[in-house]
């Protein structure tokens, strides 16, 4: 059992990080914290991709004479793309937060919702 | 059956559709606008009439419009059953058009262009129902008729009218979507076709339970036939201007309903299948209940149009009752009654409108002595009344005679009692009006002093008198309708009648 847990520690970390991010993205009332949560959430997935790329005893994915075992480079490439996507998402999210800050004067969701209520 | 390909049925419908366009464009010139209505009405009747010899010659006219989906075609077929309905509706449109013009102008109603446009669409839809070759086409025009009559019902746009209109729509559109459409799904699912056939299409294709479910869905879904307990839309629709109540809610819409019932029962289920499962009788008894109950309710109404509306509910059930009995005479009677009731009831509604235009009276209790001021109108009313009751020498007698024979053929004597009772009830709620109009003294203290009341405008009186006489004439010359009815009975029962 301990081996089952310890041998796959990288997956456990990814799951833990993912849940932390997920929680923050949903439960935090501050919009910036939500974005941070989203970032952690996405980063966890990157970790997952890097983990699946690892081949036991594999070297760097550089072609060498006589050593055919090397780490799979494709997930790394994929994750480079995903990182770009994550960065763009963060950029858009922060831009929207700035917009919200200008219009409402706050980035706390509770206060914004209160402001949005029809006042009569 | 010989098939005769022709675009004439389509033309008959397009005539009123093009009239819609012309009416819409010439809204600013009322005289021109009314010319279009009248021209379309006459032309339409002429086209329908031109198809009559072909149909009487034992042929069916077919016209294919468009293929929508596999199994769903928009196609028209003119057979004797459709012909009967189409003739009645298109002939009465001419008369109603004249009457409408008189009515709308006398009262200086608003939105007259919309009114005449919707009226033309309604007639197109009615003809579409009469001529449809399959369930899909029938359903299309059935829905179109509901939608285009809604603006007519809410014409006054008062809160009361809108409430009535909403009820109208909820009943008609709601049930057709919720019950009729699933029934059509079931028919298609089991048979793979929606084409009408004089032997029925469901026989042998669907398990008994499915047939029964489909049957119930259809009866519940064809609310236009106003069988109780789904009749409440008809009294609600009486907020409409009277010509609308006259043509649409005594002829086009409600007749479209009973016509659909007849069509579906005979051409989708088929006489044999219905007899085998014994479904006709249940319908006959539900209809009997409606006949009696609606008559009783009619007696309690003081509003003239409401009384007539309940009378319509009751009379429509004669047709449903007749087709439910499934014997040759009964089926013939259902077809004859479509026409007979149309002429009788339209006369009564026309009278109600004429009285309203001349005196602004709508209540029966205010009508004492009105026969002296409006003799022609009230004479026509009397003719209509007698036809409604089914007196000999009047059209209504013919259909009741055949219905009685049908009940005897079927060996269902309780139906005879229903017939007798309802005739008495008919007399009870209509004759007092005639009596009051001619023999009672006008009530003293009424705000309108008697000499001021004159007949309604000629545009209205002439149609009233015409339809009144027609209701009587149909007793002496019923041969055309009888021939058509006999042909239908021959087709659906497979034996000449």
């Amino acid at each position, binding site marked *: 059992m301990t081996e089952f847990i310890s041998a796959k520690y990288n997956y456990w970390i990814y799951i833990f990080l993912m849940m932390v991010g*997920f929680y923050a*993205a*949903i439960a935090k009332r501050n*919009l910036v914290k*939500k974005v941070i949560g*989203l970032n952690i*959430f*996405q980063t966890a*997935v990157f970790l*997952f*991709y890097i983990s*699946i790329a690892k081949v036991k005893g594999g070297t760097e994915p550089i072609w060498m004479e006589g050593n055919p075992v090397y780490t*799979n480079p*494709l*997930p790394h490439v*994929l994750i480079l*793309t*995903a990182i770009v*996507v994550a960065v*763009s*998402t963060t950029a*858009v*999210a922060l*831009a*929207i*937060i700035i*917009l*919200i800050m200008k*219009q*409402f004067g706050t980035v706390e969701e509770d206060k*914004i919702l209160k402001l*949005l209520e*029809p006042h009569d | 059956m010989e098939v005769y390909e022709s675009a004439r049925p389509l033309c008959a419908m397009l005539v009123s559709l093009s009239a819609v366009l012309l009416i819409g464009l010439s809204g600013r010139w009322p005289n021109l606008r009314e010319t279009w209505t009248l021209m379309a009405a006459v032309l339409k009747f002429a086209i329908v009439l031109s198809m009559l010899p072909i149909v009487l010659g034992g042929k069916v006219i077919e016209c294919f419009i*468009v*293929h*929508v*989906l*596999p199994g*769903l075609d*928009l196609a028209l077929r003119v057979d004797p059953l459709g012909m009967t309905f189409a003739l009645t509706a298109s002939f009465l449109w001419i008369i109603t058009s004249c009457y409408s013009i008189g009515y709308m102008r006398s009262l200086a109603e608003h939105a007259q262009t919309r009114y005449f446009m919707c009226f033309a669409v309604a007639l197109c839809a009615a003809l579409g129902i009469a001529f449809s070759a399959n369930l899909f086409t029938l*359903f*299309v025009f059935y*829905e179109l008729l509901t*939608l285009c009559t809604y*603006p007519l019902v*809410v014409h006054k*746009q008062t809160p009361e009218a*809108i409430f009535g*209109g*909403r009820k109208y*729509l909820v009943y008609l*559109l*709601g049930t057709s*979507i*919720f019950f009729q*459409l*699933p029934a059509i*799904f079931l028919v*298609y*699912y089991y048979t793979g076709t929606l084409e009408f056939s004089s032997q029925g299409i469901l026989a042998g294709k669907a398990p008994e339970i499915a047939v029964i479910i489909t049957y119930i869905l259809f009866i519940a879904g064809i609310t236009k036939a106003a069988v109780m307990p789904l009749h409440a839309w008809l009294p609600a629709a009486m907020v409409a201007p009277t010509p609308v109540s006259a043509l649409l809610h005594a002829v086009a819409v409600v007749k479209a309903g009973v016509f659909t019932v007849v069509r579906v029962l005979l051409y989708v289920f088929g006489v044999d299948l219905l007899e085998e499962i014994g479904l006709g009788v249940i319908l006959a008894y539900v209809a009997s209940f409606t006949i009696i109950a609606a008559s009783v309710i009619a007696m309690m109404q003081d509003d003239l149009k409401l009384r007539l509306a309940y009378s319509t509910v009751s009379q429509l059930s004669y047709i449903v009752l007749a087709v439910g009995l499934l014997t040759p005479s009964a089926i013939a009677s259902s077809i004859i009654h479509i026409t007979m009731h149309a002429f009788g009831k339209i006369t009564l509604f026309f009278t109600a409108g004429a009285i309203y235009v001349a005196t602004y009276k709508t209540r029966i209790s205010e009508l004492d002595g009105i026969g002296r001021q409006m003799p022609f109108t009230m004479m026509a009313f009397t003719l209509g009344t007698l036809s409604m009751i089914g007196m000999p020498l009047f059209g209504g007698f013919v259909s009741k005679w055949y219905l009685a024979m049908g009940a005897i053929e079927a060996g269902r004597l309780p139906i005879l009692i229903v017939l007798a009772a309802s005739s008495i009830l008919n007399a009870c709620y209509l004759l007092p009006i005639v009596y009051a109009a001619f023999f009672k003294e006008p009530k003293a203290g009424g705000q309108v002093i008697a000499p001021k009341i004159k007949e309604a405008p000629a545009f209205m009186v002439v149609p009233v008198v015409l339809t009144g006489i027609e209701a009587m004439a149909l007793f002496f010359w019923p041969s055309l309708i009888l021939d058509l009815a006999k042909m239908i009975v021959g087709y659906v029962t497979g034996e000449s009648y």
Partner: protein
Amino acid sequence: MMEHLPIVMIVLPLLSAVVTPVAGRIHRVLSWYIVVIVTALCFAGSLSLLSTVLETGRISYWLGGWEPPWGIEYLIDYLNAFVLCLVAFIAFIVAVYAKKSVELEIDEARLPLFYGVYLLFVTGLMGIVITGDIFNLYVFLEIASLAGYALIAIAKRREAAMASFNYLVMGTIGATFVLLGIGHLYMVTGSLNMADLAQRLPALYGSKVVQTAFAFFAVGLSIKIALFPLHNWLPNSYTYAPSAVSAIMAATATKVGAYAFIRVMFTVFHAEFLITGIHLNHLLLFFAALAILMGSILAVAQTDIKKMLAYSSIGQIGYIILGISLMNLTGIQGSLLHIVNHALMKGTLFLAVGGIVYRLGITTIEDFKDLGRKMPVSMAAFTVGAFSMIGVPLTVGFVSKWYLAIAALEAGMWYLIIVLMLSSLLTAVYFWRVIDNMYFQPHDASKVSEGSVVVAESNPKDAPVLMLLPTIVTAVLCVFFGIFASLPLSLAEKASMILLR
């Protein structure tokens, strides 16, 4: 040149998206011209692709000449070609429509940027449809979504920013789930090409990893298409976005999501896996029925027309998923038809409402009194769209309902008919309220409800021609494809055959 058409379809709008804001610096109208021309070219290209597909069955384009499964493959069969035409068409129509509408609803300085982002959005949608590589699909999904967030946030109303942010959080979670699903699939198969995956997966259906992958896909894509319990980003986004954006989003964004859903369900995985492997069909059926009913019920409760249309969209997504979850040919045909049909009718409705917003600035249904006389053409188009939504025969709405109902009977699930009819009734209720107000309620000028900004002159004209024309085109198509339904049907038939090999 013609053999490179698949990639041109993506590169052209992508590059133009960069050029547009720059061109807008020279002259503002230039950027609009570019968008219209580019989307028109895309539409023409998609038609040409469709005709090629009809001749040859499928087009396979290898990016950079790399052979699949190593390189990225753009694979176009009946299904893509069909959806691609729809997306390009709506993009073009809305681009024409946008000019007048956004001039009023967006700050003038931001217009060139808006058009640039609009093209990015279109690029993303077309990319999702055209690609045959599952990771590529994720990338395009995110391009479309990111552009979508920006398009919503660009509106002047301050609610828009908040709606956009919520959409962003939900959308990113959904997309990340999809990414995880892809990772799991790659873990066991080592492939990213959808056709290749389809061949490798059947042997691995017992694997927990594959099942987990599927779960991630199902949930992630459900968020993207706003399937009922995961729908809450959608209503506010559609409501507060500029009219043109609401129109294109309602007509294409969720439809393309549904396309991706169908692709993953049936091309990457097999129908057989869904039914016998994980019994997903019943679960999906339940959520679809729930979406249909709840969407309709919530729509009845709305007083704001755009919100009402948004909730109605949630119900309509249920229809699409319902057809899929029946897992028979007729059902999938119904779903595919409904993708097109709903795009047309919802497009019409949002475009017509955009006209009202442009002239009068009102979206409260109560204030629509007498509009039928003031804006006859827009309202006629709206009525056509509404009838189609109700499912009146001879409109597109009837066609898809017909197929779904027959499919339900074929699957032996008659009770679904009750769901379908109940939702039709509810649809009739909420649309009739609008029609009633437009045509039949007497106008009372003193009782315009508070909060609505009545900008217009006392006697408004109909919407400008540039806005009317697209509205009329989509409305006419609603009826045209309702009568001549065999055209889209033949495509849907072929596509469903491919899906249910």
